[in-house]
């Protein structure tokens, strides 16, 4: 039996009929075509499927789609402003934080979530916040540098707006 659920994904209202055992990651990837969300393990261990659900980062492979009913979701596709990159994406590109790129969408969304809560995180805060996102390529150093760089860009930008 399918259930009709309503979601707001990247600002767009969606109405989808889903099986009760459908995972959010599969809903996003298979039904909505949002394949930027990656599936690395399917059991909540690698963090590649991280999305922002109601303001919090979640492993979308551990969330049943029906549980996201009425929720608001941000995926990697929704982060990019038109005609450019989000400052976090920009920092990841410029600092060499991306190698194979399979962890990048999840890593970037975890970073986004961190910077929402803590605009000037220390290196330790950053490592703590990203510890649920595995990366086998980079040794994490350039990722941490990118997040620090993005934090600097975002805070200087917001200071600028206030003035």
């Amino acid at each position, binding site marked *: 039996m399918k259930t009709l659920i309503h979601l707001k994904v990247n600002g767009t209202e969606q109405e989808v009929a889903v099986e009760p055992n459908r995972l959010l990651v599969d809903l996003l*990837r298979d039904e909505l075509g*949002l*394949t*930027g*969300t*990656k*599936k*690395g*393990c*399917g*059991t909540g*261990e*690698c963090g*590649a499927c991280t999305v922002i659900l109601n303001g919090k980062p979640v492993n979308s492979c551990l969330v049943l789609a029906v549980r996201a009913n009425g929720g608001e979701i941000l*995926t*990697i*596709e929704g*982060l*990019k402003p038109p005609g450019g*990159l989000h400052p976090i*994406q*920009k920092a*990841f*590109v*410029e*600092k*060499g934080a*991306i*190698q*194979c*790129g*399979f*962890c*990048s*969408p999840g890593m*970037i969304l975890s970073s986004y979530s961190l910077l929402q809560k803590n605009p000037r995180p220390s290196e330790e805060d*950053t*490592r*703590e916040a*990203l*510890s*649920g*996102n*595995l*990366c*086998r*390529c*980079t*040794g*994490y*150093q*350039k*990722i*941490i540098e990118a997040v620090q760089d993005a934090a600097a860009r975002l805070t200087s930008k917001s200071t600028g707006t206030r003035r």
Partner: protein
Amino acid sequence: MKDYSVINSRAARIDAPDKACGNANYIDDIRVPGMLFGALLHSPLAHAKILRIDTSKAEKLAGVKAVVTARDAGTAKYGVSPARYDETLFCLDKVRYVGDEVAAVAAVDPETAFEALSLIQVDYEALPAVLSMEEAMAEGASLVHDEYAGNIAAEVHHEFGDVEAALAQCDLIRTDTFKSKRQDGGFLEPQGCIAECDSRGYLTLRTSTQVPHYVQRTVSMVLGIPIGKVRVMKPYVGGGFGPKASASAMEISACFLAMKTGKPVKMNFTREEVFLHCRARHQFVHTLTTGVKKDGTILALKNECHLEGGAYSSFGIATVYYAGSLLGGPYRLGNMKYDGYRVCTNKPACGAQRGHGGVIARAAWEQQLDCIAEELGMDPIDFRLKNIMEAGNVSCNDLRMNSLGMKECIEAVREGSGWGQKKGRLPRGKGIGMACGFFVSGAGYPIYRSDTYHATVTIHLAEDGEGIHVYTASAEIGQGSDTTLAMIAAETLGIPLDSVRISSGDTDFGVDLGAYSSRQTLMTGHAVKEAALDVRRQIIDVLANELRVDPAEFDVKDGVVVFTHEGVDFTHIRKRYLNEHRGWRGLPEGNESLTFQEAARIAYLAKGSIIGKGRYKPLPLGGTHKGAAVGTSPAYGCSAQVVEVTVDMETGRITVEKMTDAHDCGFAINRTSVEGQMQGSLSMGLGEALFEEVKFDAKGRILNPDFAEYKIPTCLDMPNVGTIIVESHEPYGPFGAKEVGEGAIMPTIPAILNAVYDATGIRFHELPLTPERVFMALREKHIEKDHKTSVEGSKIHG
């Protein structure tokens, strides 16, 4: 130092924006209309005879389109090295490990495919399984393959110089045994593929591979289709590190099912299947005997190695050679004996992983060298420097170091880490250690014996002259080869990186042996450079003719034609170009310099499509002994590392506090990418040193086939690395470049081991250094110390 416009910079990777936005397509992101989903039936037993396979129930299930076994697919043997083809697509008469492939199905959706698997009835007769090297080598042990007597699938016996005579002259001889554990690749993207077969029998396989070329050959050979009818395409790949460097049963099954059903077939490994099909690092047990003179000169090394290979040979014949040959350097060593044995067991097959075959040999030896330095009363760095090879040296097993910045690397980490202030001066529980290593920049020979080119490349000039398109079958798997190769093309032609487009990873684009043995930058880089020079020559010939100028009198730089003298009149070229682009914006005007674009357009008008061709294969390398090919390379990268650790003396928990790494990559095409390879290598080495181990139960089943129980480093485990690039300008590398992707892992494990010894006074001879292992050793040492104190009443150092 030459002035470069594109290379040696920190250019952002060309694939990074798409990857950052979720626009980069990996295999599981691709869907083809009407595609079926395939799944593999794995053996539940480690060793058993297959008595009967009944697929009738599965075939009757609604939605199932094909069920195939060895009866359908045949029993053509394949593997990695033709010297040890010992696999068939599906098991015919027996299974050899838990996970061995017995059948495959294709169905309308994954759920139906999995249900169909459960309906296949297989009757087995269990056979005794051998699950460790000890069991496998025991008298009368059950044989994994009848043709491998004593379960030894491959053995190597080499001697260079005269080891016994050299040992007789040594003042100090030391023997140690060192044991590692099976490692998993731990890449984030599970393997997947999509196979399609058109009505004329042309097969297209999209797959997450490091080696489109070898997959193409294997599919062609096993399924009996001409190579020209098999196209292998690699989408973006989420890491490989070795385990994706050979054709898998999944890839061949998908092709077979696509041929059988006439429909596209998609298959994916679950994370558990990734572990089952690991083909990653073997377990190694090395017994090393090293002899030195009192002054620290290393005279001889005896190396005996057993490696546990699992049920099939895969890369193993190369692995068993590498475990010997890669100790030929980076120290001057006149006498070396190696006896290597690859042992079959009823466990998943092992293959290649970053630092193929050499990582544990290196760990064992670099730790032993530290012990020897201590016994000689020498600083470990001084001891190494005393024996270090230099550019121009040839190892006793015929590895030629045309460039080698080993000494520079050691000096860089000594200074960069503050070694002098720290070594021997850290408090109990804190330690510092160092080690060195080197690795090939591309295997000197293909995996199959052949005179093939290792890389062929074409570069097409856009007809409007705006830019070029590089076509290569090389494999971007995350290491950054697309960007590196595009940078080489841009630099060679004198145009900006933005004017270069690259399409890679497709067997229709040429021959390229792929991403393994750290070969893309050097080998494909050469072919790209040659193709770019060809394009350049074709453009310049036309231009020289048009302008009546000698080709030597101008150059192209930053997209502009630069003349060695003034007064060259190119107005007729500009006029012609402008005439062809009426209504266009941003056109060159007036007296501004002649652009590459104008010159290239003129060349196209004169000659038609301009295509540059490049190719590369190394000159013959190595000695004449059996197996001399393994370890040869046109160039060798090398590195030195210093690691600082804290060991919790109560719990045994090790924290790696700081790492300093210097790597000689010859010449950094992209400095950011070189650092990224170094840092990533160290992270993988740290994981193997501290926690990674694939564990099995008594029935040969993997106990930890997931990232919860098989731990790879997180960002809390991995410290920042002082990353130092050393450039020795390799004469046989494009622009002087050589490897970085694997050599950088070599010193990591022994540097950690040596630091842990410095912190605890304990030498560990078995990996990984889990808190439990360290705690037990600390406790034992404590008991021993108490005992000695009470017996001798003397203070023990440590």
